């Protein structure tokens, strides 16, 4: 009956309770939605980095990543690639030969990172081929060597589709050679810095130019079916290829991983602060409710209701009041998060700034079930803490003076 009394007591002063319910609902709604927005942005960035740049796992000769030295190459990359492709859970594998270089046109020149790939394989590990703003991903057949470049670089070198450019290359002996390439495609990824630096050529074109055998590569990119499998597959690859350096996306871009965990923490703190602010409103309302009911509480204590029961009656009222608001707030947020999670929020107006730091211009908010659960628990905990003050006030009332109305 205590539960029944507490619940009904919440609705005695409808206006007062509704104000709190609405405040809690709005506060949580705002908090949860912005959490979901931030989380969506972070998740999306992780997704896009994995699916355009890093893949889930990369394999290199040890130390290659430090100096990009061609001496540190994998001679049998192709057999490695087919071995790894056969592993369960692996979606796609692509062998890449990376080399830093200088790209020149008659107008200008710029430092670039060459990625020599097998276009078909690369297309399976990276979505970059969907981000073409001119030309296509190596579809056009040309007599000279085809090259796909980022938009930033195209602007810098003042080249268009079908323009020619020269790459300064280095053989593994340190000899300088030149290669002429024809632009067949220009891409625009979500990271404009990446677009200023990155070019793709075919491995079959580059290898002869630098006198390397056909199956040579410096890196192998692995895309998995599920991001969650990364750790497991890492362990598998590590035991299989002990002399290679194997890195997961979290190691390749530690900032990304850090950002993701920092985001979760920030989100919890953010909602926590909102809840603490709301707690003051809840405490205030409940103290008022207790003061209004001094005589009634005195009567209850007089006829034999134990202090513990009175305490829990007020605690329950506080929890019910808060949870009612929280339910409305959470339902509203879930609906809104799901809606915008599907349709996305277009940040077109702010795009320039956002784009250059590697975020997509359309954000798909999303929050994990775990996060909703954490927030729900936080509401209950905060409500219980907030309830302590009015509940203690209620049991501190002396029955004799309370019935006298003091």
């Amino acid at each position, binding site marked *: *009956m205590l539960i029944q*009394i507490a619940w009904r007591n919440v609705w005695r002063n409808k206006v007062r309770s509704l104000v709190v319910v609405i405040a809690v609902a709005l506060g949580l709604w705002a908090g949860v939605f912005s959490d979901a927005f931030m989380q969506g942005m972070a998740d999306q960035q992780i997704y896009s980095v994995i699916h355009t740049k890093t893949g889930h796992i990369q394999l290199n000769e040890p130390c290659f990543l430090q100096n990009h030295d061609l001496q540190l190459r994998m001679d049998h990359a192709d057999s490695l690639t087919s071995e790894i492709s056969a592993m369960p859970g692996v979606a796609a594998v692509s062998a890449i030969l990376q080399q830093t270089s200088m790209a020149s046109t008659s107008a200008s020149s710029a430092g670039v990172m060459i990625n020599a790939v097998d276009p078909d394989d690369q297309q399976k590990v990276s979505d970059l081929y969907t981000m073409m703003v001119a030309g296509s991903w190596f579809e056009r057949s040309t007599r000279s060597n085809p090259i796909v470049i980022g938009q930033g670089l195209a602007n810098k070198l003042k080249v268009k589709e079908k323009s020619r450019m020269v790459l300064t290359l280095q053989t593994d002996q340190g000899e300088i050679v030149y290669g002429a390439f024809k632009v067949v495609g220009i891409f625009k990824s979500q990271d404009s810095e990446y677009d200023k630096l990155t070019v793709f050529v075919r491995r079959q074109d580059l290898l002869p130019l630098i006198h390397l055998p056909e199956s040579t590569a410096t890196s192998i990119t692995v895309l998995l079916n599920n991001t969650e499998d990364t750790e497991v597959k890492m362990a598998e690859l590590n035991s299989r290829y002990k002399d290679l350096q194997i890195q997961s996306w979290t190691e390749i871009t530690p900032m990304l991983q850090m950002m993701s965990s920092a985001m979760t923490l920030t989100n919890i703190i953010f909602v926590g602060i909102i809840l603490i602010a709301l707690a003051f409103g809840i405490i205030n309302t409940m103290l008022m409710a207790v003061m209004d009911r001094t*005589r*009634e509480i*005195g009567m209850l204590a007089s006829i*034999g209701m134990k202090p513990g*029961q009175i305490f829990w009656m007020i605690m329950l009222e506080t929890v019910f009041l808060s949870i009612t608001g929280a339910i409305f707030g959470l339902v509203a947020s879930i609906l809104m998060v799901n809606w915008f999670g599907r349709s996305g929020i277009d940040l077109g107006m702010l795009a320039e700034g956002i784009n250059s730091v590697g975020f997509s211009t359309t954000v798909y908010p999303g929050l994990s079930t775990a996060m909703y659960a954490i927030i729900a628990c936080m509401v209950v905990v905060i409500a219980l803490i907030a309830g302590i003050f009015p509940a203690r006030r209620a049991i501190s009332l002396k029955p004799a003076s309370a019935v006298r109305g003091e």
Partner: protein
Amino acid sequence: MAVIEISSLTKTYNETTVPVHALNGVDLQFEKGEFTAIVGPSGCGKTTLLNMMGGLDAPSSGEVLVENEDITRMKAGPLVEYRLNNIGFIFQSYNLIPVLTVEENVQFIMELQHRNKKEVRDRVDHLLQVMGISDKKTVRPKFLSGGQQQRVAVARALASKPKFILADEPTANLDSKSTDTLLDLMAELNEQEQMTFIFSTHDQRVMDKAKRIITMEDGKVISDVKVSN
């Protein structure tokens, strides 16, 4: 045998700037089945005395024996339990829980006592019948008249099967007709079930119905007479 024995009871309120001697050495005995009115001018200590007898407040000195047990020495916890199971209370107002129906208000005290469901249901029905408010069972207190509310309060007090019922000015807010109805019902319960009622009042009608009248002044009993009517 006396149900209640009060000896040398004093109560001084010290929280005020000038100490108030609300009770100045009260000695009284109450037998089972009494129907007693405590009367006297405002501030003479009626409420204070009833509070001491009900274990709602501690006296400054003296004792209150209920069936030979000194309730003034009880610790807070056991005292609440004692009140619940032994004393019925009726106040001037704010007797009922506004969010519960008439029926639930009466049930509530028995649930605090952990009585079994069947017993609760039967007793509630019976008591509401006796008090003549069966038709208002499912109504909330605010839809009842003052007299009806007090009748529910009596039913609630009886529901816990107390040793005696203390009523502090139970009719103060009632019109004369409701006062009569309430008093008649209480007198009937007193006659038929030997329920002990001790109440304070300013109301001449109530005094007329009482079988014993204790008059107080300045925290002292100045007269104590049995009346036969």
